[in-house]
């Protein structure tokens, strides 16, 4: 019988039932006004109903940035059908969220925000999440052709707008900004740039000084070595172009890497990449990183992303967990 009630009626009844101390006669009159007769929900049912409403709120506002629709509020278990929330509204929002995380500042220019466009296509075409970073295709010319295969493309890292945005100003054309941005976007590396060293030299010799070389030459992620497997910048402004690297193999990430594709493949096929991706997913859904008590939820995300390659499924794995609506 409850299923035949409109949601509005149900919510009115629910509100009435929750009125502590409301006169039974008043309740009865209101019910007659509604023209229906239903059993008064027990206190436990009412508490559960409110919990469901809070859950629907959390899900919809986190995933779509909107208040929940009536259909979801009417669900006995909003988490059971959470897939439906991961629609095009979500795709646009998630793409903007991740895009914002991948840049150092905001830009209104579409050509400087190609991660956004690629994420939209990955979701709409059900492509693997890693395609955002290493997909061998470029953005297509129209809706009918959303992607165009390209042997030379390496995700958005080879999009002209992105390359220009992070070309940097290194004197010899090494793209240090791009190198850092690649590491930050894929595995979440966080470095703090120093504007100068003690000698005031910012060239490759200056960057070998002790206060600089920790990030530029030594360790697992030496920026100068990463930049040496990327194309180099020549010229500036409208005459800027990029030429192939000439420095040969570099010792990076605990292995020897020669090309940008090798670099990106190594990064994307790592636990660090999956971990950073699930951190993004967690922050999107919860507004913060996972906590120690949420390790099992995070593990579910990692396992799903590893098995399916789908960021949508990874997000669903988090949103479906009981902890999410607790």
């Amino acid at each position, binding site marked *: 019988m409850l299923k035949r009630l409109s949601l509005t009626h149900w919510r009115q009844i629910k*509100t009435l039932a*929750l*009125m*502590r*101390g409301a006169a039974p006669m*008043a309740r009865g009159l209101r019910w007659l*006004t509604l023209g229906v007769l239903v059993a008064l929900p027990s206190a436990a049912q009412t*508490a559960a109903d*409110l*919990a469901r*409403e*809070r859950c629907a*709120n*959390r899900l919809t*506002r*986190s995933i779509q*940035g*909107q*208040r929940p629709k009536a259909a979801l509020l009417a669900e006995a278990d909003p988490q059971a059908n959470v897939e439906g929330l991961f629609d095009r509204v979500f795709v646009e*929002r998630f793409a*903007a*969220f991740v*895009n*914002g*995380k991948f*840049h*150092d*500042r*905001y*830009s*209104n220019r579409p050509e400087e*925000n190609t991660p*956004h466009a690629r994420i939209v296509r990955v979701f709409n075409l059900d492509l693997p999440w890693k395609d955002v970073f290493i997909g061998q295709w470029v953005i297509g010319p129209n809706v009918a052709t959303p992607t165009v295969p390209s042997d030379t493309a390496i995700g958005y890292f080879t999009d002209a707008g992105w390359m220009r945005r992070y070309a940097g100003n290194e004197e010899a054309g090494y793209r240090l900004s791009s190198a850092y941005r690649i590491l930050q976007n894929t*595995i979440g590396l966080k470095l703090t740039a120093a504007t100068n060293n003690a000698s005031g030299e910012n060239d490759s010799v200056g960057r070998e000084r002790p206060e600089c070389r920790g990030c530029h030459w030594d*360790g*697992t*992620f030496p920026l100068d070595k990463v930049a040496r497997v990327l194309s180099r910048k020549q010229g500036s402004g409208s005459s800027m172009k990029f030429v192939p690297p000439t420095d040969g193999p570099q010792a990076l*990430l*605990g292995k020897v890497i020669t090309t940008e594709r090798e670099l990106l493949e190594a990064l994307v096929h*790592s*636990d*660090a990449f*999956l*971990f950073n991706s699930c951190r993004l997913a967690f922050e999107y859904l*919860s*507004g*913060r*990183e*996972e*906590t*120690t*008590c*949420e*390790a*099992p*939820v*995070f*593990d579910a995300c*990692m396992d799903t992303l590893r098995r399916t390659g789908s960021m949508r499924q990874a997000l669903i794995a988090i949103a479906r967990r009981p*902890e999410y609506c607790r």
Partner: protein
Amino acid sequence: MSAPGPRRGLVAAVVLVLFGCDGVLVGPAGQPLSGDPSVVTPGAVDPAAPGPAEASPWGTPSVGLCVDQPSGLTYVGFSGNALEADRENLEASADRARLKSYDSLDEIRNEFDYGATLGTTITNDALATFEAHPTYEVPETQGGPLMIFSAFRYGYLGCLKALRTTVPSTAFGRHVDFKSSPTLESARRQCQRFAVRYWKREADAEEVEACAAFAVTETAGEPTPDRQWALLCGVMAAAADNLTY
């Protein structure tokens, strides 16, 4: 680019602004925060009673530590480091309140059918106050005094309109309690009602008493019962439980 999520203290901040400024919020050890020191919320903590060690000054900790840590997996980074090592030691439900977007003001507007009387002014105002997100990023909504005041203002105006309407379908206008000034009894009843409506949960006894005390003492200066009730309703609508999810 957007600030990370934790908004600890938001609840306290919002409640402080909306309840506390006029002296009815019970502060540390049950003392009124300001105003008449004789106004002590019924059911408040006995100032003389010893509190638990390291208890929050607000009585209830806003975050809790993860006591029974689950055995999660370890993930190794390129440097051989454990990637999960930087996790905060908090329970699963800790620090979860996120501010709603400007949409929440729009929600209040819709709930009370603002459009018919106040038109688009409210929406534009709400957009400016809550800041709709730009095309290429979704920053976490940040709170501030203007946002809180706007939420209260729209809540108050909406409640007042609802209380004065003769349309039967509107939420609050027909209850017999609203025909006269709040009493402790009627305020307790309506506080619970507002809590369920706006907070999507039942208020606990302490919250009900604080709310009822506010209704009786702090709205007394309003000239008519509907304005008194609208003030209470607006405060409840602009409280943290409604502004966050």
